[in-house]
């Protein structure tokens, strides 16, 4: 069986704003191409209606300030649910792979949610993974983020999780939103080396992309042996994308899908809605369904101009490969360096609402268990009062001492009264508690 499950949800009645790139029209031409090609009739492809994700599914990952419901729209329950439907179809053995061709996207959404950033409010891949871990006993997951923008939200959520390998290649953060995704972002001390970034120079074409894939991504996946491979399948590396500067073709994307053999691909960005998306999506669908994609070629392919700096790629691969090879040793050094707690400060900008968030993340490096973390967050806008919150996140296998310490940390902050809102997200109990 080589059957592809396709969850197609173009959200034809949803837009961030009427003229925003993330608008009703975005998947219109993709729909036309898919329908005209007759793809939904092929016996190798089965179309699924998305299920609705629940608030519980969303809050298994996110903590919204003051609450998640106030930030999300109905559409988010559908796209997150679409990703879940795709993963369930694969793990139930109904299909070999699945593609959640859904919107709105999610890979810029971090754990704490004060608003929408990079067109994303909730992280649909992370929600899907949490759902699958909860309901299907999945443990090791690899996420390959092939969007042109760094998947900073996904990286944030899984930064301290050694069971989630996050590999992102993207246009260099010095030249593109969100300005992160450098080679020194490698994961927290106990998950060191399971976050791997490959910033690529603008203009990188199919040759460069496939060099990274063949020489880095595929060997590492082979090495990591995940239970599930997820592709955050952004399509804005395309040569015609208006918001980025890369030079990948539909063939480049289709061959990537063919080689990666992701269990689940989830659409992320991609805003060349006429010149790229119809062809890239048809290419990905055919490749994932094991069908001939060699004739999927953009009508304006001759306008493509790209060049890959293979010398740079080679060095990049070498550097990151060394990290991967030595990650256990490097993790030990990191733990020794940090001691009981790992602490980092983050400045997070929400471009859609102009919010500036300051975050202090403190992770307990417990020798007995995955520990817990606390996040102190303060978000400011030019127009509204600041929203601050303090949250403790108790990991799945937290030892009694860590459980206690996490709750104590919140109690102590409540007494001090420095924040507007307090939360305990308990992964063991599968709850998010809002403490008044």
């Amino acid at each position, binding site marked *: 069986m080589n059957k592809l499950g396709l969850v197609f949800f173009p959200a034809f009645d949803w837009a961030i704003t009427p003229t925003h790139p993330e608008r009703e*029209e975005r998947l219109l031409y993709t729909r036309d191409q898919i329908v005209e090609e*007759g793809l939904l009739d092929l016996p190798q492809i089965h179309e*699924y209606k998305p299920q609705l994700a629940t608030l519980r599914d969303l809050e298994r990952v996110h903590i919204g300030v003051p609450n998640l419901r106030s930030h999300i729209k109905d559409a988010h329950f559908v796209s997150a649910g679409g990703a879940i439907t795709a993963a369930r179809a694969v793990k139930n053995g109904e299909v070999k792979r699945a593609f959640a061709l859904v919107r709105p996207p999610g890979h810029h959404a971090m754990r704490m949610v004060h608003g929408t950033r990079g067109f994303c409010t909730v992280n649909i891949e992370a929600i899907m993974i949490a759902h699958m871990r909860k309901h299907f006993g999945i443990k090791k997951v690899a996420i390959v983020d092939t969007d042109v923008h760094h998947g900073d939200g996904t990286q944030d959520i899984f930064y301290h999780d050694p069971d989630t390998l996050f590999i992102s290649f993207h246009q260099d953060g010095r030249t593109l939103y969100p300005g992160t995704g450098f080679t020194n972002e490698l994961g927290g001390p106990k998950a060191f080396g399971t976050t791997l970034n490959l910033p690529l120079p603008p203009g990188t074409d199919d040759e460069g992309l496939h060099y990274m894939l063949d020489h880095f991504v595929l060997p590492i996946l082979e090495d990591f042996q995940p239970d599930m491979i997820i592709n955050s399948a952004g399509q804005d590396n395309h040569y015609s994308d208006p918001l980025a500067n890369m030079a990948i073709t539909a063939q480049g994307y289709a061959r990537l899908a063919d080689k990666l053999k992701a269990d689940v691909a989830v659409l992320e960005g991609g805003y060349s809605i006429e010149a790229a998306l119809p062809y890239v999506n048809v290419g990905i669908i055919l490749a994932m369904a094991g069908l*001939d994609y060699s004739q999927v070629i953009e*009508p304006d392919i001759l306008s493509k101009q790209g060049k890959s700096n293979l010398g740079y790629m080679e060095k990049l691969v070498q550097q990151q490969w060394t990290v991967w090879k030595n990650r256990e040793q490097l993790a030990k050094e990191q733990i020794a360096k940090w001691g009981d707690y790992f602490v980092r400060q983050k400045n997070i900008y929400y471009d859609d609402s102009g919010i500036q968030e300051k975050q202090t993340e403190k992770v307990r490096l417990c020798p007995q268990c995955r520990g817990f973390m606390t996040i102190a967050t303060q978000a400011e806008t030019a127009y509204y009062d600041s929203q601050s919150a303090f949250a403790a996140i108790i990991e799945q296998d937290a030892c009694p001492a860590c459980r206690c310490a996490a709750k104590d940390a919140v109690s102590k902050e409540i007494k001090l009264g420095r924040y507007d809102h307090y939360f305990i997200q308990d992964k063991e109990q599968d709850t998010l508690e809002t403490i008044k």
Partner: protein
Amino acid sequence: MWLGIDVGGTFTDAVLVEDGKVISQSKAPTTHDDLLIGILAAIDLAVPSGSPLVIERVALSTTVVTNAIIQGAISEVKIVLMPGPGLNTEGLFPVKPALVSGYIDHRGRVVKRPNEQEVLAQATLPGKIFAVAGKFAVRNPVNEQQVSEWLGKCKPRLVIAASKVSGSLNFIRRTNSAYYNAACYFVFEKFAQAMEEALAKRAITAPVHILKADGGTLPLALAKDYPIESFFTGPAASVLGVMALQPSMADTISLDIGGTTTDIALWRKGKPLFAERGATIAGYNTAVRAFRLHSVGIGGDSYVRRESDKIVVGPMRLGPAMAVGGKEPTLSDAMIARGDRVFGNKEAAIAAMASLALPGQSVQDVANQVIAEAAYIVRQAIEDTITEEIAQPVYTVNDMIHPDPFMPHELIGVGGAAAGFVPVIAKQLGVSYIVPPRAEIANAIGAAVARPTMSLTMRADTAEGFYSIPELLLKQPIHSPQFTLDDARKILADHLLERAREAGIRSTDLEEVYTEEFNMIRGFSTIGKMISCSLQIKPGVLMYFNEGQGGVRHE
């Protein structure tokens, strides 16, 4: 007075109806080698020669096209295809197409024009039949039109452009529709001619309509151009029959229980559901609009036997019921033995059941078991169709958040074997049921009273500045940047009404099949609208039947 004829697998039924009443009905064996013999026999029985009855309309549901396809008695057709880049189409068409250049993109822009030499190389001999299809030709028919013209210069027997046959997206389905339409063209033409002559001999001069798979009729003259539309119309006739005999505004399931199969149709708020993309013909996907029907291999003639002590019913048919001289027990024998149906020799039916009885088991008990077993299979199929309906994808947030769930609470049964069987199925499903009077001739009634229909599709791209109506091979400029969905509707309605008038369809009752309107934004400003619209002459029935009080609902 209207005459309705349904050519079934075993019998050809004819009914004469007026003012919601059946004036006469008749039945003759279907003559598969020459359908016309059976049709005329049924007509002669229903309308005896010299009868003073005045026939104002004849409507026919025929298997002529279905038979021709199943028997392979269709013309050889060459598909001339402009696939452009994309899917590898190998194996998706009944014959290997000749691939030629020419490509239209999703906006209807010509990316590549066809090449005359390439096309003419496909037309070296006169007298050939061609189906011409191009990807996205429904967005701009210019390439299909050009290729058809070039082929037309080479003395072909027939050239059919795919976008004329179907105006909807799905290039594979359109191509197959055009192929089968071309392949059945002459078979149907011959049949239609013979039919007209035979009716003329009987002094029936009323217009003749042909039933389509979507439950509408086409005047014979126009049906000749679209023979493929008459594929698989028996089930469509039965759906129309249900509508005429037992109109309902509720979510309903109707069953047509025939000799070998039971056809299941779903109804939402009184309207039968359509197959999402079109009918499948001989294993190939086409764009032929048809009701969404599920056929399950249980009917009156279903063969009943014991397999390792268990009663098994169908799906095969080995012959008629033992009550009418068959050799093996059937579902009908069980019904006759129980007294649900009265035909043939009841003693023979009882003997059939007795032959299946375990030691000490009564005939009544065996018959009950047979019917329950058959009902269980149909019930499962019904539940599967409901599950499938609920799983139909939707593409807007609103449809996800505010679903309109399909919740059928009643079963309407028609067809020869409905009585006695439908109640058992309904009981198993826990719903009420109705078997309306005349249920056994629902198909012929459906054909008699089906409304004529016709549809057209428009795509308007105000940024590119043109609209197209593919079924008319029409592409026209849009002059006003303020062109709206309402303008599109008006233009399309005018074309549709004009075309209907030409075809002799009097109805002016239009219905929207589909509309879609998107703002096109480029660089943060609106540059135009993308409008899709499909209209049809309203389908349905022209007459309702209320002899007695209609059907009795059984809870």
